[in-house]
């Protein structure tokens, strides 16, 4: 297939540009805060899954405890804000740093383990963090509040310094920007030496090791970066909802949902987490809004079904067929299909 033709390239660029413009102008015409909230949560999940993907996708392991790092981010920035008055904009870096240190600390022993053992150890670690937080009321000068959770003190009006806004629009642009940055980081990472080493180690650990790649070291590096970025998302979630509690933000369900989105979208691909979030989040939000009173848990049944079907028929995720369809469409519209055939 000759995909280098200028016409095809122009159409491709124009379509992508149009999509970018569309996404960036949504808040201009969409005024419903409900739908804006759905979109914000969609982007947040796309963001968190993209950071999950750095370990879960590229390093070829299955982390099932990433909610721990979301929680570390949310708790650190909020606790610093409440007790010391530190702006969440600064607190989020502290949370990210703590998450990265914890991630590396836990990653060094666990990332040596094989598939199931790694998944189980991250799960136990995530649950351990939840139990720890639920049993802590007070940590030195900081109030943790155990199972009751914490609320971020509400300040009047828009307060840029305190990361609080009355309208949803600023949150929309913040998370959109964060998503763009993290997608760029993933793209860049997948084109650097550590990224290649990691992909090699994920696919053929023995072969990579035989070629002298220290697979474990790059996995730990990816884990550190992933946890750092995940915690930043945690701070965003805290500022968006202004109230959170351990069962919600540190729960097993949260960790599993991140993994599900990545696996359904396409593990180890750049667009996978976004596609996965785009497909799954609206299902979960809409069934939760309209059907939760009559059919509780329906969205999770749908999740499970989609997950099984994708694994059966498209084990590499839904990005692959979508990409194929998009390329076919490009060929068709630029009139190259006939050329290829003749």
């Amino acid at each position, binding site marked *: 297939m000759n995909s280098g033709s200028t016409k095809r390239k122009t159409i491709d660029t124009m379509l992508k540009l149009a999509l970018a413009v569309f996404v960036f102008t949504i808040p201009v015409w969409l005024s419903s805060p409900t739908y804006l909230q759905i979109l914000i949560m969609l982007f947040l999940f796309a963001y968190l899954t993209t950071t999950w993907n750095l370990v879960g996708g590229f390093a070829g392991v*299955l982390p099932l405890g990433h909610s721990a790092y979301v929680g570390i981010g949310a708790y650190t920035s909020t606790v610093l804000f409440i007790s010391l008055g530190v702006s969440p904009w600064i607190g989020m870096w502290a949370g990210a740093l703590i998450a990265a240190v914890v991630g590396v600390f836990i990653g060094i*022993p*666990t990332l040596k*383990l*094989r*598939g*199931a*053992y790694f*998944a*189980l*150890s991250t*799960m*136990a*670690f995530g*649950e*351990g963090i939840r*139990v*720890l937080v*639920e*049993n802590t009321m007070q940590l030195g000068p900081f109030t943790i509040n155990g199972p009751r959770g914490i609320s971020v003190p509400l300040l009047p009006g828009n307060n840029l310094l305190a990361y609080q806004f009355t309208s949803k629009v600023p949150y929309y642009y913040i998370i959109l920007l964060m998503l763009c940055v993290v997608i760029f980081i993933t793209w860049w990472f997948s084109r650097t030496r550590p990224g290649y080493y990691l992909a090699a180690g994920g696919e053929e650990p023995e072969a990579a090791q035989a070629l002298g790649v220290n697979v474990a070291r790059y996995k730990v590096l990816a884990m550190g970066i992933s946890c750092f970025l995940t915690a930043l998302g945690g701070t965003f979630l805290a500022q968006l909802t202004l109230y959170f509690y351990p069962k919600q933000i540190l729960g*097993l369900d949260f960790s*599993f949902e991140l*993994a*599900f989105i990545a*696996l359904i979208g396409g593990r180890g691909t750049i667009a996978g987490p976004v596609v996965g979030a785009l497909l799954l989040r609206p299902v979960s939000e809409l069934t939760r809004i309209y059907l939760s009173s009559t*059919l*509780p*848990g*329906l969205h*999770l*049944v749908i*999740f*499970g*079904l989609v*997950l*099984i079907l994708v*694994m*059966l028929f498209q*084990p590499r995720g839904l990005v692959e067929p979508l990409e194929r369809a998009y390329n076919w469409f490009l060929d068709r519209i630029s009139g190259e299909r006939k050329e290829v055939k003749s």
Partner: protein
Amino acid sequence: MEFYIQILINGLMTGSYYGLAAMGLTLIFGVIKVINFAHGSMLMVGMFTAYWIVKLTGWHPYAALILVVPMLFIFGYALQGIVIKPILVSQRDVREPTEVIIVTTGVWYILDNLALMVFGAEYRVVPTSLSGQIMLVGDYIIQTPLLYGFITTMVTAGLLMWFLKYTKMGMSIRAASLDRDAASLMGINQYRVYNIAFGIGAAIAGIVGCVLIPFYYVFPTVGVVFDVKCFIIVVLGGLGSIPGALIGGLIVGLIESVFPMFMTSTWTELIVYVVFLAVLFVMPAGLFGEKRDW
């Protein structure tokens, strides 16, 4: 002193049904080399089946075993044959197909939430002739349903080990778990072996259901309570080892009954996780596991 012995007895009793709950999980892992994340949901199905049979017929919970065990065996057999087998077929070159973890997680979500939609979220209890019974052995109080559970666990473990060691099917299961390709060459139908292993795993979940209903609540997410616990138990004991699951269960039961003597009982959950991670880091194969599996 007597007080401490009483605590130990309670811990061993509780631990035995943890071990029983984990036994099916470890059997399935031993054969397919994959953690069955739907294990807790299978326990939930077992408990609901036992619950409804006892509630509708008014039988003794142990009499319900006659119905529950075959029903759950068929359930597990069909689950593996219909849902999991296609993945194993497409991933037959991979020693440890991660996709199976994901598919069984999907099964977990479907089963738990279907139960939520059908039965509602309430906690159910069914009065049985065993409920609340205690007996005195010397100076010690023993809860009768827990003692029955302890005996059932030992009998089940014994039968299972005998089955794996001496019957033809048991030998096929062990052969397939050692080397599935070589087993296939020897004329063993590996997918039938998997079906049967899954069926037995589910049947054990049915036994757990009958053991638990005299003293435990039944609700749609009851599997999650046992899920993480079972994962920890099987790794402690060594994945794939039946005696390992039993001893892992007893260890967790003892931790949960002894540590509340020294600290707030909610902290014991954390102790279990810490012990688990420590064992995993120091000896990843667990107490009885084979080294090559981690």
